[in-house]
């Protein structure tokens, strides 16, 4: 299976501090790959580097072409989209405008199908339709995450980078978000999912990596990882599930 994303020996430094150390991973076309690990392990840093927000060393190849030198907007144009941990919505703009701007590049390219896609997003997230005229800043946590996802979908991504999509959400919403992730997968989008909710992430993913203090320490199919004693112990709450 060809890889949408192929990362080899990716390192990121903040000044002298190395936050990510020679991480290698691969997202096969059409699959969900998850990266789990504790807070501060370098997960968000990795996504930032892949999106072009942070300078890195090493090699990252997306859809068969090297990503080096590509600006953030060039990456978006090529179908690479990040839904960041902090959502980064446009709080003083309406829900509808947020979605519209998600398709900014398609607009400027003269794509006429944007309107239909807005409707599709509303169908996927009916709550957003109810609040289409509301300012994004007034939404609740779960609605914000939906809007962030919806905004990313408006760009027609080929690879979605999701940073902690379940962060701060009620269990009910967490369930919903993971259903949506599984659902998106059906439409052919590849997904790189960074999560601290290891159990949910491993249930939805095909393949997984474990990252600790900036290094990838384990990898395997989601099923293997979910059964790995070390993962069970550290991330699935061995004691709690017993």
């Amino acid at each position: 299976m060809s890889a949408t994303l192929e990362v080899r020996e990716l390192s990121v430094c903040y000044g002298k501090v190395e936050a990510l150390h020679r991480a290698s991973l691969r997202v096969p076309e059409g699959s969900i790959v998850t990266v789990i690990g504790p807070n501060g392990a370098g997960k968000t840093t990795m996504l930032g580097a892949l999106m072009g927000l942070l300078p890195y060393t090493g090699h990252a190849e997306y859809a068969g072409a090297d990503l080096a030198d590509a600006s953030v907007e060039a990456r978006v144009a090529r179908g690479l989209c990040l839904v960041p941990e902090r959502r980064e919505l446009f709080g003083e703009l309406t829900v509808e405008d947020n979605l519209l701007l998600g398709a900014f590049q398609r607009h400027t390219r003269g794509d006429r199908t944007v309107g239909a896609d807005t409707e599709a997003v509303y169908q996927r997230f009916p709550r957003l339709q109810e609040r289409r005229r509301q300012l994004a800043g007034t939404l609740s946590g779960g609605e914000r995450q939906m809007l962030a996802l919806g905004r990313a979908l408006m760009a027609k991504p080929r690879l979605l980078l999701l940073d902690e999509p379940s962060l701060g959400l009620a269990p009910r919403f967490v369930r919903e978000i993971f259903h949506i992730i599984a659902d998106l997968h059906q439409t052919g989008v590849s997904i790189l999912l960074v999560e601290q909710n290891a159990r949910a992430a491993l249930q939805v993913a095909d393949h997984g990596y474990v990252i600790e203090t900036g290094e990838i320490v384990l990898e395997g199919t989601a099923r293997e990882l979910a059964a790995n004693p070390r993962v069970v112990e550290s991330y699935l709450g061995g004691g709690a599930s017993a």
Partner: protein
Amino acid sequence: MNPARAAFGLFLGFLIAAPFALPEFYVTLMNYIGLAALVTLGLVLLTGVAGLMSFGQQAFVGIGAYATGVLTTVYAISPWLSLPAGLALTGLAALGIGAITVRLSGHYLPISTIAWGIALYFVFGNLEILGRYNGLQGVPPITVAGWTVDSGRDSYVLIWIATLAALVAARNLLDSRSGRAVRALRFRGTMAESFGVNTARLKLVVFLYAALLAALSGWLYAHFLRFVSPGPFNVNAGIEYLFMAVVGGASSVWGAVVGASVLTMLKEWLKDILPALFEQSGNYEVIVFGVLMVALLHRTSAGLMPAFARLVPASRQASRPGDAAPLARRERPRAGEPLLDVRAAHKQFGGLVAVSHLSFDMKTGEILGLIGPNGAGKSTMFNLITGVLAADDGEILFRGERIDRLLARDIARRGIGRTFQHVNLVGAMSVLENVAIGAHLRGRHGTVASILRLDRAEEARLRAEAARQVERVGLGEHLLDAAGSLPLGQQRLVEIARALAADPVLLLLDEPAAGLRYREKQSLAALLRGLRAEGISILLVEHDMDFVMGLVDRLVVMDFGEKLAAGLPQEIQRNPAVIEAYLGGIE
């Protein structure tokens, strides 16, 4: 001899040789450089270090110059009396202006400095007693014990003694208890407040210091030129000082000298060379000057000083602190006494409820774990207890006293020390200095004492205490490294050391184990147990369940700002609601 000292020696040698070796013209130029460096130095502290942008320093130069101008010409008072008078007047003006403007947040401050800069310029130009736009003629020269300072070379001596003294004073200040707090102002104000620094007052002090330096420069200027007119005190002059600070490198004391030299010489050189190049009259200096500035900043936006510093090989200026008498410790409550009582605390951000009527309590000598999914409101709860945020509703009691209406620095004074979820260190400062900020409230010497180095005995004790705490968290070998150069996990340990340096009764740790390796976590757990044995109580937010379960006495589980459960670790682990919330509840 270390290279930094050698560079300083070279500079000093040049300064001593200059009046003998240089022609009159260059001595005069050096005088202008010294005068500008004095003002710029104030700006470096104010803008580069403390982060307060000012366009108004020229107005203080003007007050200093006019004060001595009027007093010596109109009232025939000795310059040695007009100096303190001018400084006092400037000080009053700066306190007045500063009290109003320093507390202005964000971009209000720069605009208000422009505003009073312009306003004072027009006052200078329109007051009869100040000679209106014609200025004051015949300002007498300064005399020192029979020596009349009336030539450029004489003034040189006075100007550069003053400049060097100001440089040393600034360096002394930055290397002290107050200085560490000043260096934290720009990026780490919240942190500084959490360790007892009154940041508003400190900003005012820096503002005052910068104004006094400017006034001193004005006094020297008036007696060097023997003439005062409003021209040099217009807004452009203020902006020029800012140019000098930025070009020199606004975060370094020596950047002031570099910036003042480069800009003063550049302007002089442009005035010389351009008329020869362009026949036509016109203001070509400003054009070339502007182009050069833009080009320079494109190459090095941090100014020239960092580039200069690279020429001199780095040296470890700071040394490990020696032995000093330990600092006094606060009296502490007995084990089992009620310590912290949170009653229905509530906090909302817009539509998001972060903490929802949450109640829990802690006894002295306990380690209490506060757990819950990311975003459950744990860090907000920390900020409510430490006064970084004000609760919308509810009460928080510490040792029986209500603290929920107190400021962060007053809560710190009562013995609560904390770490931050997002590491809150001053990256450019050493580990030792960062930790010493924690001991801020255990010292008492202020800015004046540190400028005069009267604080050394206390400073030695503060540094020794900081070093002890650094050793204690196991970072002894990194004592003198810049805090920003450590890996994130170790930066969290520095945060713990800093909190310990405050001699806390209650320690609030926000994810201390994040980013640590297994062994490091084990030694951290051992350290925390040791602290508990000493009678320090700990409130702990942490995600690593292994770490938490083996360490804490009791747990409070938060979800959605609410208390989901509370109890002993074993009970919590079996609680179905906790399992559901914490593990995502995927069917």
